């Protein structure tokens, strides 16, 4: 019972923040002269026909999966006070390397996929190792180095897709791309599952990689809360000095956290690569998950469960973009709403924390009238 109460109490600020964000966005929509209620309707409009609804759900899943993985990757570093801004570059490198290697080999189905996943994680971790080594040996701020490495990754990936991994069959006027991954390396979609559940089958492939993402999320949650590594990570994040005093090497933790973060970042591009694209093509590669992942991690308070909800919320808003446009609301409204949600959650969190602290102080005073502390004016 107390546990349930705790859950509700933990969730309440977020719900308040969500309502606040909706209200503020409503004001914005009023300012541009459109109807906020119509917008709200469009937000929850999944389409008229069963196929359209199934499509909408598919889009939702496909969008949430990479956002969840990106948020998870960012959160690992956040938990110990490291700012890995480089998930963007790490997943770009991982995706192009995985696409190149995946197309070059042919293996039996599950093994082929496994190899691609491992290669992607290794490539992501390797790219994240650069800022980790720079930080531990030369004291370079990981914020600066990861941002720089993001730019380098764009150029490096563009070169990889043109030279070593380029599809030799491409004509001269065509955009550079890797060769297509063989069928054995393509991840089965969830479309049949829709049918089995009595729903209409979506027209677009629904990425089955979401299952992998969920499993990874559970593993990370267990590792963070139950393993020694998780404890050391959290301890370093809460108080680095105390952790060091207790024999937790901060250098080793920086490297471990960055490598794990990079390995998870390596998974971000895979739902699309294995589920529908089957090759890396610069034009259709979706960039930006690494940055949105930061917002998702913040919104999810760096907890795997929270990140999953945050990713679902972000994807839900993204999915509504085209519908909102039909109501005359510009596509930027979705981005504004996402920004406001994150800001309101952070603000409401801070307010809630201060209130909690003040209540604790008051209780302490009541129990022990000899101590005096001045209440801070708000």
């Amino acid at each position, binding site marked *: 019972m107390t546990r349930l109460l705790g859950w509700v109490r933990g969730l309440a600020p977020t719900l308040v923040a969500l*309502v*606040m964000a909706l*209200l503020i966005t*409503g*004001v914005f929509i*009023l300012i541009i*002269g*459109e*109807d*906020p*209620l119509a917008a709200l309707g469009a937000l929850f409009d999944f*389409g008229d*026909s069963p196929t*359209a609804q199934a*499509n909408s759900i598919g*889009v939702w899943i496909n*969008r949430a999966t990479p956002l969840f993985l990106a948020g998870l990757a960012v959160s690992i570093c956040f938990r110990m006070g490291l700012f890995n801004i480089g998930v963007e570059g790490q997943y770009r490198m991982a995706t192009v390397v995985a696409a190149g290697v995946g197309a070059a080999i042919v293996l039996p189905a599950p093994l082929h996929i496994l190899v691609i996943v491992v290669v992607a994680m290794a490539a992501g971790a390797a790219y994240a190792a650069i800022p980790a080594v720079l930080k531990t040996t030369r004291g370079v701020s990981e914020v600066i180095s990861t941002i720089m490495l993001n730019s380098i990754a*764009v*150029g490096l*990936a*563009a*070169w990889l*897709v*043109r030279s070593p991994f380029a599809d030799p069959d491409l*004509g*001269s*006027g*065509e*955009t*550079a791309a890797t060769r297509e991954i063989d069928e054995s390396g393509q991840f089965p979609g969830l479309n049949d599952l829709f049918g089995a559940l009595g729903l209409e089958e979506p*027209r*677009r492939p629904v990425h089955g990689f979401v299952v992998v993402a969920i499993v990874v999320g559970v593993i990370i949650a267990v590792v963070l809360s139950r393993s020694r590594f998780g404890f050391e990570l959290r301890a370093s994040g809460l108080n680095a000095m105390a952790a060091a005093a207790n024999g937790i090497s901060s250098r080793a933790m920086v490297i471990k956290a960055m490598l794990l973060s990079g390995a998870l970042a390596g998974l971000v591009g895979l739902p699309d690569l294995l589920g529908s*694209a089957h090759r890396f*093509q*610069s*034009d*259709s590669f*979706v*960039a*930006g998950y690494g940055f949105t992942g930061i917002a998702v991690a913040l919104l999810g308070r760096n907890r795997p469960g929270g990140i999953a909800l945050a990713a679902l919320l972000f994807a839900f808003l*993204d*999915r509504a*973009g*085209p*519908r909102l*446009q*039909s*109501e*005359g*609301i*510009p*596509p930027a409204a*979705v*981005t504004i709403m996402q920004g406001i949600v994150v800001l309101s959650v952070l603000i409401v969190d801070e307010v809630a924390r201060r*209130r909690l602290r003040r209540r604790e102080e008051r209780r302490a005073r009541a129990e022990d009238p000899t101590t005096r502390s001045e209440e801070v004016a708000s």
Partner: protein
Amino acid sequence: MRRVMKLAAGFATAALLLTACASDDGEDSGDSTDSGDSGDSGDGLEVGLAFDVGGRGDRSFNDSAAAGIERAQDELGIDFEELSPNADGSNRDELLRQLADDGNEVIFGIGYAFAEDMDTVADEYPDVQFVRIDGAPSEKENVAVMNFADHEGSFLVGAAAALMAESGQIGFVGGNEGVVINAFGAGFKQGVAAVDESIEVEDHRLASGEDPSGFDDAAGGRVAAEAMYDRGVEFVFTAAGDSNVGVFQAAADADAWAAGTDSDQYETVGDADLQQVIATSMLKRVDNAVYESIEAYSNDGTVESGVFDLSTEGVGYSTSGDFIPEDVIAQLEEYKQQIIDGEIEVNFEE
């Protein structure tokens, strides 16, 4: 507790206010026209249009398409619905699906980036005619691709640059290193070389590979162009979408020439100071391609792929502002005729 009440009261007021305004708005919207989708001009052909990233208002590529579909609305009495992709362009396929689900018979995808998504969606909606502006030809029966000979138009701009820049220093600013922008650059350089082979064109790209961020980086465009003008460059041709404005600003500061792309940017830039430096624009008649496709569909019920080059006036150069001297125009027309006649062959690659 007091604090909680205050907070609650605040929210309640905000909510009340909001709903009050909303219902007001609801009553009004009955007689105001909806600008989003123009479903008010009767029961004409229904056309859907999905813009490239950036959407309507880029004063360049997308706006040219918008001009075409608005002309079709006025002259052919069609109804149209337009959508813009999200910032990372990941929902292009969803836009096409929604346009198809909304019952549009002809659906445009503006920009080569629609290539793969359009082919995928075309399979799902075999009865819908898809039209892509720009890009490689498609194997799908219901996808028509309108290809533009960007290199031919750019050739003429290159020739104009070489004839107008007395110092012989010329620059090119491209959005990225993708095939489309490479065609602009290649054509431009060949045009310069046709006038004076000794001129080396300074080539700067705002992003590497196919990275689209260079099309939305006016600050980067300005810095790149400033550096060129500082080194004595007199004429910069820019093919970088929204970043073009930055090049124009640098040109205005340096009091030197610039040339724009896609739309007639002298007309669309909307700033008198910047107008004075836009010598010409490489015109890409996306508006014609859109209009003619709709016209073809209303007449024949299908759209064939087409090539828009100099001979069909699909590409060209603008003379707004009258900055290009008469004798230069005469020479440009000569080059144009030679290209149409096949005497000069412009390559889309360097």
